[in-house]
């Protein structure tokens, strides 16, 4: 669907995008994730033909975005970071203008605009001046504009920035529903958003593609150890003895509670094998109750921080076994670095899923 090969963009002496290679398959929602200034917008601008690359090529369904611009652009609907709206027009006038500019045939123009206004829920503001509309509506009109001409690919640059939480949820729902019928690429620096929406995450850092995989695989791949967090009613000695029979346990941290005789235990293993079942039976054998048990995997946020931190970049080989359709992309040379990923430097593992709310809250 989209082939990006060795894409490089240099502004003066600043390298915004460096040797980016990936491919996008149809029918998925892709998320470009990266800190501000990572090169997400630049990449999207190049893919959509708004910006010329310094080197490399972009093919949309085989059409070069530069050489066969008109054919390629017909396949793409683009919502830039700031919705490109003519403030002096009403919603319907604006959409009609876009439809005509995209050469939607006259006979299907009004039906299509009607449909799209329905999908994006902007019918109630169809006759109002865009200038007087709220940011949420403008964003919707921006998305509606991208949908006009029924392109197969929808590219959305930070579609939820500057919206209130309710609007964010609505826009996400909209994107999700678009994902059923279109290939969607969206960019964001909000982890929870990408995680919730996207089938495949592409993490970009300083103009390089550092990871490309499904959210689950990214978490799995970067979990060096599978640890189990327990709350038990047992003494330290009993606990250590019970767990000593389990293979591969490297470290046991016991922290007794002062009040109710329970203790928090963290069991770390070397392998990636889930040991929770064995832990359960170990405590069964000594007839001590486990009050709570939690499998600790590294959260996506940890992966993200690790990949985009300035200190080091991961060895790309670790990502080789990603989702099948992306094995090609994962071979991308971006982020290839001689530095080995040292487990010692990894951020502390956190219980899965806890960070979603926080990450979002910080962005508002």
């Amino acid at each position, binding site marked *: 669907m989209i082939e990006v090969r060795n894409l490089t963009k240099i502004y003066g002496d600043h390298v915004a995008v460096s040797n980016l290679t990936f491919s996008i398959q149809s029918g998925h929602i892709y998320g470009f994730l990266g800190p501000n200034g990572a090169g997400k917008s630049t990449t999207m601008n190049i893919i959509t*033909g708004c910006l010329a690359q310094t080197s490399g090529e972009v093919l949309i369904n085989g059409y070069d975005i530069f050489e066969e611009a008109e054919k390629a652009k017909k396949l793409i609907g683009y919502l830039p970071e700031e919705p490109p709206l003519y403030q002096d027009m009403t919603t319907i006038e604006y959409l009609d203008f876009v439809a005509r500019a995209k050469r939607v045939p006259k006979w299907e123009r009004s039906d299509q605009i009607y449909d799209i206004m329905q999908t994006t829920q902007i019918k109630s503001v169809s006759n109002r001046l865009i200038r007087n509309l709220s940011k949420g509506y403008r964003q919707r009109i921006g998305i509606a504009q991208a949908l006009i001409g029924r392109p197969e690919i929808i590219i959305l640059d930070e579609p939820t920035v500057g919206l209130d939480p309710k609007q964010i949820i609505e826009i996400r729902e909209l994107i999700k529903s678009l994902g059923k019928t279109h290939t969607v690429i969206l960019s964001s620096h909000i982890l929870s958003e990408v995680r919730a929406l996207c089938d495949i995450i592409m993490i970009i850092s300083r103009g390089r593609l550092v990871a490309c995989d499904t959210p689950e695989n990214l978490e799995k791949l970067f979990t060096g150890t599978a640890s189990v967090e327990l709350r038990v009613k047992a003494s330290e000695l009993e606990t250590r003895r019970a767990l000593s029979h389990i293979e591969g346990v490297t470290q046991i941290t016991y922290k007794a509670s002062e009040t109710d005789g329970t203790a928090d235990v963290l069991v770390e293993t070397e392998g990636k094998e889930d040991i929770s079942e064995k832990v359960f039976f170990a405590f069964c054998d000594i007839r001590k109750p486990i009050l709570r048990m939690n499998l600790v995997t590294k959260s996506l946020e940890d992966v993200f921080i690790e990949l985009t931190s300035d200190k080091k970049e991961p060895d790309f080989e670790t990502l080789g076994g990603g989702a099948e359709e992306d094995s090609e992309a994962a071979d991308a040379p971006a982020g290839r670095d001689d530095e080995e990923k040292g487990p010692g430097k990894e951020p502390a593992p956190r219980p899965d899923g806890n960070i979603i709310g926080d990450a979002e809250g910080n962005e508002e």
Partner: protein
Amino acid sequence: MRAILDRELKAYFRGPTGYVFSAFLLLFVGIYTMVYNLKSYLANFEYVLDSMSFVFMIIIPFLTMRMISEDRKQKTDQLLYSLPMSTSKIVLGKYFASLLVLALPTAIMCVYPIILYMYGTINFLTAYSSILAFFLLGASLIAVGMFISSTTESQVVAAILSFIAILVNFFVSDLANFISSSSTASFIAMAIAVLLLALIIKILTKNGLFAVILAIACEAVLALLLYTKPAIFEGLFPSILKGFSLFERFYRFVGGMFDLTSIVYFAMVSMIFIYLTVQSLEKRRWN
């Protein structure tokens, strides 16, 4: 292209721009018709156009200042770039929209000679060819203004620069009469002009080497010509200035001459600046 044209045209008449432009132009036509025709019992409409051509200095920048710069400012250029439409079509759409805004008052002007005919003798050919030249002059100046608008994000800057450009164009033929027409003076002026041109090329293309080579080559040719045929330089610079002046070309029509080369010249200036505007927009993608 039609979509862009329609949008731009609507934008002109949704705000005050289109109306103010027409009103201002027609106001001056009215005033000058009263003074030159009605008060002095002359039916020569071309005199009216001749005297009021300076109005272009004010109304053309007013018309063209937002043409491209506004898109850049409100980021709608991103939309235009992502449309399946070539940049030249976008630029042409915008250009023709403003031409239509100019054509509206010009069409109303066409009524004046008929009114004057009822009360005196009139040379229709001169009157209408002057109106045509007036329109073409405006069309070329719009192209210049559009190019200037494409180089900046600020409408104010675009308006001021366009005003200066038209001002220089307006006065250059008068000023040319005061310039020394000796061959040395012309040579020096031409040499400086070449340097300026090279500087502009360097700024636009960011290719220093090319500009320097071009400048040296042109200067060498000039020096060679001065050495071999100094007579060429006699009065050359003033006549070149006059030759470049768009207003000077317009005055020929007022004088009763239907000058085809001038029509070609107007068309060429328009095309060159439309081309430059397209290039200026394309260049922005490369930054």
